[in-house]
């Protein structure tokens, strides 16, 4: 190895290349019959085997690569390799206006898109100093959408966790339950994912008439499917045999590794950003933070199920509030920030309302100029930096925004909880059985879109 330390080099640790590994027998398995590989491995008589799992393995929640060193059935070393879904979203955001940034960050963790949108918008509003000017109705709609999204995200986690153990019914029940929420999302935002619905200053548009009744109906359905999931999971001897005592991560380890969310709460600490540093008025809602002290994969299932019920409690409170407050503005009053157009459904889908187009094209040149300037140039944000955290279904999501006083973010960094939590892979897999790796990883619930950004 060259002595890279002598003059202070700007190079990091050189790429690890082990010349001894040349000529090591390697096998490629792509499903099907493994017996020939097993026979060949037995003939070599080597106990120590390095298994490369992924990045195209269905049970790795996306393109996660695991490098497992196994001794028999025991995992002696586990390493996670990421970056296969890195798309440079943070860099791209530096070349778009503050409003367009929402369209980018919603694509990070695609299972919980509304949390990135909310965290980003809260950060932009803090930079602008308009946090207190956001209309109450917009804030309540944000909470409603986020809590529905939390349930949807947890349902995906539980569904895939079951599927990976071969319990297809858990998967179908979970995804059917999530469908109820996606229908609401489609009704309110027009899309099932990548919504770009929450915007700096408020939300893109008000919830459509009758949406509150739709949400109430959906809640009945969700409660039904959650009940089914509970019946299928909580006393299931096979699931318990697979999940109890697996993927242990103690409170000390969680704090050291910065692991937050359901995994941290499953180890006993009731740390929830909605309680610790409330945003969007969460301090005014009644809900509990479920915890467990078992710190294993099964307790994380229980905590997530319990959190779904708590989210439903919050959703019910938002419905009451929206009902009580009646119609009102959902975007900040400052016309220099608020997107000028109102959206409407036309014959060719959703777009600018015809009334608005009639105004800017037919009657008011000033409106046209205003529309053009705000849409193409965007608004300026005073120089400075902020950090905003929200409670994401997977943990604490942090948004670090830097503005140089321009119309675009100077730097946008997302501290994604899945990215951070994946660091725990080594700790929860090493020393366990190779079959438990899948259970342990799914209990962390990583989404690689968020990990790699």
């Amino acid at each position: 190895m060259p002595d890279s330390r002598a003059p202070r080099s700007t190079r990091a640790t050189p790429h690890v290349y082990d010349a001894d590994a040349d000529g090591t027998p390697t096998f490629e398995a792509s499903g099907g019959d493994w017996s020939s590989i097993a026979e060949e491995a037995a003939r070599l008589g080597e106990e120590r085997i390095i298994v490369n799992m992924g990045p195209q393995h269905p049970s790795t929640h996306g393109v996660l690569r695991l490098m497992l060193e196994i001794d028999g059935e025991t995992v002696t070393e586990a390493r996670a390799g990421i970056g296969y879904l890195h798309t440079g979203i943070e860099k791209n955001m530096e070349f778009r206006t503050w409003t367009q940034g929402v369209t980018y960050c919603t694509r990070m963790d695609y299972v919980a898109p509304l949390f990135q949108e909310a965290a980003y918008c809260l950060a932009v509003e803090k930079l602008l100093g308009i946090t207190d000017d956001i209309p109450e109705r917009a804030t309540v709609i944000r909470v409603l959408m986020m809590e529905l999204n939390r349930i949807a995200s947890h349902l995906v986690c539980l569904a895939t966790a079951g599927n990976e153990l071969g319990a297809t019914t858990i998967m179908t029940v979970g995804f059917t339950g999530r469908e109820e929420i996606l229908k609401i999302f489609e009704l309110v935002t027009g899309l099932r994912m990548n919504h770009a619905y929450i915007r700096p200053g408020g939300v893109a548009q008000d919830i459509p008439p009758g949406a509150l009744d739709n949400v109430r109906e959906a809640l009945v359905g969700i409660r039904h499917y959650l009940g089914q999931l509970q019946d299928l999971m909580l006393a299931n001897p096979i699931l318990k045999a697979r999940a109890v005592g697996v993927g242990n991560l103690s409170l000390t380890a969680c704090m050291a590794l910065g692991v937050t969310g359901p995994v941290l709460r499953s180890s006993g600490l009731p740390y929830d950003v909605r309680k610790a540093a409330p945003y969007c008025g969460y301090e005014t809602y009644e809900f509990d933070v479920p915890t467990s002290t078992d710190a294993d994969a099964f307790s994380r299932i229980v905590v997530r199920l319990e959190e779904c019920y708590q989210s439903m409690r919050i959703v019910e409170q938002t419905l009451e509030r929206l009902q009580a407050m009646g119609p009102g503005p959902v975007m900040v009053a400052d016309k220099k920030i608020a997107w000028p157009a109102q959206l409407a459904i036309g014959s060719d889908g959703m777009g600018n309302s015809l009334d608005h187009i009639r105004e800017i094209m037919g009657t008011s040149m000033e409106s046209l100029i205003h529309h053009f300037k705000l849409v193409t140039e965007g608004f300026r944000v005073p120089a400075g930096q902020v950090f905003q955290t929200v409670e994401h279904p997977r943990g604490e999501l942090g948004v670090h925004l830097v503005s140089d006083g321009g119309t675009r973010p100077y730097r946008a960094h997302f501290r994604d909880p899945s990215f951070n939590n994946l660091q725990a892979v080594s700790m929860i897999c090493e020393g366990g059985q190779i079959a438990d790796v899948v259970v342990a990883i799914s209990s962390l619930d990583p989404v690689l879109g968020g990990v790699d950004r």
Partner: protein
Amino acid sequence: MSDGKEVERAQEKVPESTQLPPLDVIGVRTGMFGANGPGDTSGYGGLVREITMPGSSERPYGGWFDEVVDVLAEVLEEGGTGFATAVEKVVVDRGELTIFVVPAHVVQVCRALRDDQDLRFELSLGVSGVHYPHETGRELHAVYHLTSVTHGRQLRLEVAVPDGDPHLPSTVAVYPTNDWHERETWDFFGIVFDGHPALARIEMPDDWPGHPQRKDYPLGGIPVEYKGATIPPPDQRRSYT
């Protein structure tokens, strides 16, 4: 000046506390509409404005900020480092506390913040970088976000290193969670965290040249043609900044 009273009144309006602190210039912006040279007929082409970040704050910082800075100073003095040697400045902006730390002392400051019972910032939310190419000698900033679950507080540490010698001690020994975050900051900005257990690239492929989040690294992209018109990639388009 017609009336002395008017001047007095104007002075009265400015409370003492809003005296602006020294500013932190990170760049200069010229023009206004993104067009340079003869294309600019707006008359704003000669406009030159400095881009400044909020500068060092004066006491009192407000809220718990004073207490935390006092305790940190006390702990650092006890540890023999000295507050003035370790901390460059304290900035309070938009209700958030930022402590600028001298690169060599970042580990001591982190340790003090984590271990002292009155500080107890036990949870690190990671490290990220910001590249300010115009800040000569302080081009690369590493930004740490720390949370105290015990006291319900959050603060930010900022460390600036020159582009020519981007070395910084690693904080992995204090906050093991910073492992991947430091790798990401190395990957994207080229900040070298000395003492990191394995500072390899994390998001980009191992053999990738350059550090993509730096301002001098192009976004890439190709021009898009549509109905005979060509639209340049986003980083080469006219912009309003």
